[in-house]
């Protein structure tokens, strides 16, 4: 059963077509990867799903409900959370409050302050950052900032989590740790849709992979199929 579906999704920026008539779906419980060369339209697609942008054409549905054109906070409260390619934390706010925002505002049913605090603590424990709770987010390493972002997203109790290049800028150890985190998130029952460039990560962890190129979907299938697809190899398959 698809938790997320998109049909004919299109977006232009002036003369440039960023996303062109893309159909996609993510089934409940899956881990789906989204790959493609730089400028392929992957982040734009995420922006269209999360409500940061409005599609020119096409429709997107989450849990069977149309979400095209809804504002980001509404979509978040419906259970769809995301992280950003250039990590977005609130720099001058302590880590705990960064995550607390998620549990205070992002859940589908409201929460009392006490409950929200508890949820935030749990989220921080989950990403193993409880120790840095009082530190201002800007003073953390990049890897930890990304974890804070993930914790904040998890605090909104999402059913679907969009991860935009979680591994970007991380060294080998950090990548392994991030992969492990993704695995644990998935084990919680959260569906994951992730953009990645780090091939090892995505091939290892995804059930299915979509490939975008110049805004169009050019391939879709299991990691095995994608790795051997001529089209994809021609277009892009860097290590």
């Amino acid at each position: 059963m698809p938790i997320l579906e998109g049909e004919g999704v299109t977006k232009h920026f002036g003369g440039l077509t960023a996303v062109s008539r893309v159909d996609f779906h993510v089934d409940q419980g899956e881990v789906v990867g989204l790959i493609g060369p730089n400028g392929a339209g992957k982040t734009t697609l995420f922006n269209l799903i999360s409500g940061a942008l409005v599609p020119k054409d096409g429709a997107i549905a989450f849990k069977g409900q149309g979400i095209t054109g809804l504002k980001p906070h509404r979509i978040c409260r419906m259970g769809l959370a995301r992280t950003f390619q250039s990590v977005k934390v609130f720099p001058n706010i302590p880590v705990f409050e960064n995550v607390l925002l998620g549990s205070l505002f992002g859940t589908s049913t409201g929460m009392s302050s006490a409950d929200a605090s508890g949820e935030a603590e749990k989220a921080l424990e989950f990403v193993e950052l409880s120790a840095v709770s009082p530190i201002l987010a800007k003073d953390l390493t990049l890897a930890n900032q990304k974890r804070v972002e993930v914790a904040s997203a998890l605090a909104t109790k999402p059913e679907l989590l969009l991860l935009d290049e979680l591994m970007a800028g991380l060294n080998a150890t950090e990548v392994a740790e991030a992969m492990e985190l993704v695995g644990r998130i998935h084990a919680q029952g959260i569906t994951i849709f992730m953009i990645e460039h780090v091939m090892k990560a995505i091939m290892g962890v995804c059930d299915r992979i979509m490939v975008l190129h110049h805004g169009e979907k050019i391939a879709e299938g299991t990691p095995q199929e994608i790795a051997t697809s001529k089209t994809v190899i021609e277009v892009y398959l860097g290590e």
Partner: protein
Amino acid sequence: MNTITLGLKKWWIPGLLLVILVLLASLRFYVSTYTVILATAILMYIILTESWVLFSGPTGYISLAPAAFFGVGIYTAAILGMHLPLPVVVVIGGLASSCLALLVGALTLRLRGIYFAIFTFGLVEFMKHLLLWYEIKFTGTRGRFVVLVDNNTIYYMMLAILVVLLLTTYLIRRSKYGLALRSIGEDEEAAAHTGVNVTAVKVITFAISASFMGAAGAIIATRWTYVDPYIAFDPLFSFMPVLMAIFGGMGQFYGPILGAAAFAYLEEVLITKFPYYYMLLFGVILLITILYLPNGLVGLIQRLQKGGWGRRHANT
């Protein structure tokens, strides 16, 4: 661990505040009438500044409209002052201002910050022209006389509004909306994606801040006794709160109060002898502050504290 609550780390603050409140409330018994009037003006400026900071501080959206909301309050008193008891007039003044703010906010706060800034900038002049046209066209008057109220009542009302404002600011800052406001200022898109209804939070906070400006306007109109659109909608009352907030510093509670008190007093002292020079001086101070003292007096004090007492106040 939880540093969202920006107060009550020091137990003696509530006691100190109570003492100050009692001193202020009993002011008339030990100072001259002139001082009471001066104190009223200072309180008025503190209200304008703190309410400006309430919204523009955490969100970073620069509003140049305080004079417009202030003017709405003034005109409410001018129109209704003769017919209704003063407290009612003050409340209506506050409500009218917040309605205007809701309109302005709904219009501009869903767009980039620059639109908000320029719209609020022109709003004062717009209101002035509108009222001028209306008064000449429909009521045939240019100015209005405002109901007379004794100085002590004016002072107490202003003090009451300030207390309510400070309480409101404190409660908002401590609440989840305070956190939401700060998150909007840090990264509005991220805030929206974390579930914050950014437009609603902005518009409502803006309206709340405007209501206090309107209330202050309604009260001070009775002190001025004669108002016309030029007097009521004077860009000076947009300039002063901005100057006071930036000079005083918005990082802490007392920053705007310091700034407001300092410039209100300076204005009082300089205005009769050097009417244009004092404004010139204020403009220069604003420039110098923006250039060299971006966090205002508060920032300066904090830096001195860090340098002096070092570890006690520094973050890890």
